[in-house]
């Protein structure tokens, strides 16, 4: 081998080393046997982005195109009184959630893309309202991210209450990764925390800094579209879309920086890189990262006794590979990943219902209940 070819070989290796991504160590596998059946409980939905169960066993379901559906006794009613919704790209009517004391106060929370405010385009907004005779009433505008943009990506939008009654919500970087996620004077690329009526909590991490968006709870996020309160610890868990590779599970902590786009396990869609590093001091490591990306949406942690083998497992929908991923954790590490409901369609959302059963929302199919076999 002459000098030239050695050089060439070295160059080749270097090129490979640069473009190579570190795959997730634990790979997703199909189960050996399946001990459950499925039943479509709400048929014929397009993109059921959000869903929530009301105390009378009926359901509220959001369709991304801008419809809020009340499903009761087998009948779908489309509710009136929604605000104007900016339907563009990934934006539309997004998540829906109930106040922890819904039984007494009737507050329904929802997130949506809105063109409200200055500038062309839209951004994520949060509103609460009550339901009266199939119409939303007493609407209160709680938050609106700015500035508006015609970009089609990354509205985030999952909603979740914690045990202290704080409302958390996610807003993605809105396709502006270089300006938004690392800058706390700007909206987008953040997890937010507010009171149930929209006030900013006095103990939010950045309340004492000037010019910052004080509703911010954590930053450096790309596009979190899964959020759930851990049934045992009460912590807020999220999952977020990476670009090509680099989807993440994070436990959200006050004031922390989750690194996007300074650190990432992902690369650009085109295959080029935007960062060489996956960790940095002052930036949080994800609890788990996916390479390749599964395009995670929705998140549930099993706490009911209906599925003894799945207790405390994390369930995440995969839009890209069209299955429900079951992640088994041991000492805070993912040790097993299983593919459930393969081939049923793009899995948008997953929740554990008040009856303890797992419900998933599948695009073009509807809401599907997972029934364990005795």
């Amino acid at each position, binding site marked *: 081998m002459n000098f030239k070819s050695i050089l060439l070989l070295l160059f080749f290796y270097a090129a490979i080393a640069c473009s190579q991504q570190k795959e997730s160590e634990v790979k997703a596998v199909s189960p050996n046997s399946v001990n459950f059946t499925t039943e479509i409980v709400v048929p014929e939905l*397009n993109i059921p982005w959000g869903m929530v169960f009301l105390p009378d066993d009926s359901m509220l379901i959001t369709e991304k195109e801008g419809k809020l559906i009340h499903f009761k006794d087998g009948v779908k009613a489309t509710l009136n009184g929604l605000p104007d919704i900016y339907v*563009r*790209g990934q*934006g539309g009517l997004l998540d829906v959630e109930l106040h922890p004391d819904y039984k007494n106060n009737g507050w329904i929370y929802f997130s949506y893309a809105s063109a409200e405010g200055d500038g062309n385009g839209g951004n994520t907004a949060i509103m609460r309202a009550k339901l009266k005779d199939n119409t939303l009433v007493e609407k209160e505008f709680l938050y609106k991210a700015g500035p508006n943009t015609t970009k089609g*990506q990354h509205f985030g939008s999952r909603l979740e209450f914690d045990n202290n009654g704080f409302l958390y919500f996610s807003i993605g970087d809105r396709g502006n990764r270089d300006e938004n996620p690392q800058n706390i004077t700007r909206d987008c690329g953040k997890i937010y925390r507010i009171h149930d009526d929209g006030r900013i909590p006095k103990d939010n991490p950045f309340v004492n800094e000037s010019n910052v968006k004080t509703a911010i709870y954590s930053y450096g996020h790309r596009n979190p579209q899964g959020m759930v309160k851990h049934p045992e610890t009460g912590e807020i868990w999220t999952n977020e879309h990476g670009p090509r590779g680099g989807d993440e599970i994070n436990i959200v902590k006050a004031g922390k920086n989750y690194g996007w786009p300074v650190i990432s396990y992902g690369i650009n*869609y085109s295959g080029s890189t935007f960062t060489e590093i996956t960790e940095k001091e002052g930036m949080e490591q994800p609890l788990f990262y996916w390479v390749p990306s599964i*395009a995670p949406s929705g998140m549930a942690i099993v706490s009911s006794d209906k599925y003894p083998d799945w207790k405390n497992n994390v369930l995440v929908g995969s839009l*890209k590979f069209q299955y429900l991923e079951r992640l088994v954790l041991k000492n805070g590490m993912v040790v097993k990943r299983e593919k459930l409901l393969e081939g049923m*369609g*793009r899995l948008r959302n997953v929740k554990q219902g008040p009856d303890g059963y797992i419900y998933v929302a599948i695009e073009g199919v509807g809401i599907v209940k997972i029934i364990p076999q005795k």
Partner: protein
Amino acid sequence: MRIIVFIITLVLTNSCNILTQKENTKDVAFAKSIDRGALIYTDFCVTCHLPNGTGVNKVFPPLAKSDYLFEKREASIRAVKYGQKGEIIVNEITYNNIMTPLGLTNTEISDVMNYITNTWGNTNDNDDNC
């Protein structure tokens, strides 16, 4: 006579010039439309149809070398404008997924159509703007 020939030649040459100029303006506008379309593609389409337009087998149909895109142009434009639901067959493979309406303006739709029909080996001289 000579003068007449001269005048005719002059007129013809000039009209040719005018025609070429018109062609050029059209080409420039077309190229600009394709450039704008590329940005729209990165914003709205790339996550599913991928940078090389190949899509994902059986999940997201390809745009590169897609028989559907070229044979069913109107249905393709309709899909971009109003969304697409239900079974379609692209390059002999059946796809049955949902693409929601993207909320693009008509100009944005023609820009992105010009881009996808003139990229990845696809060619289409017919400017969808004109």
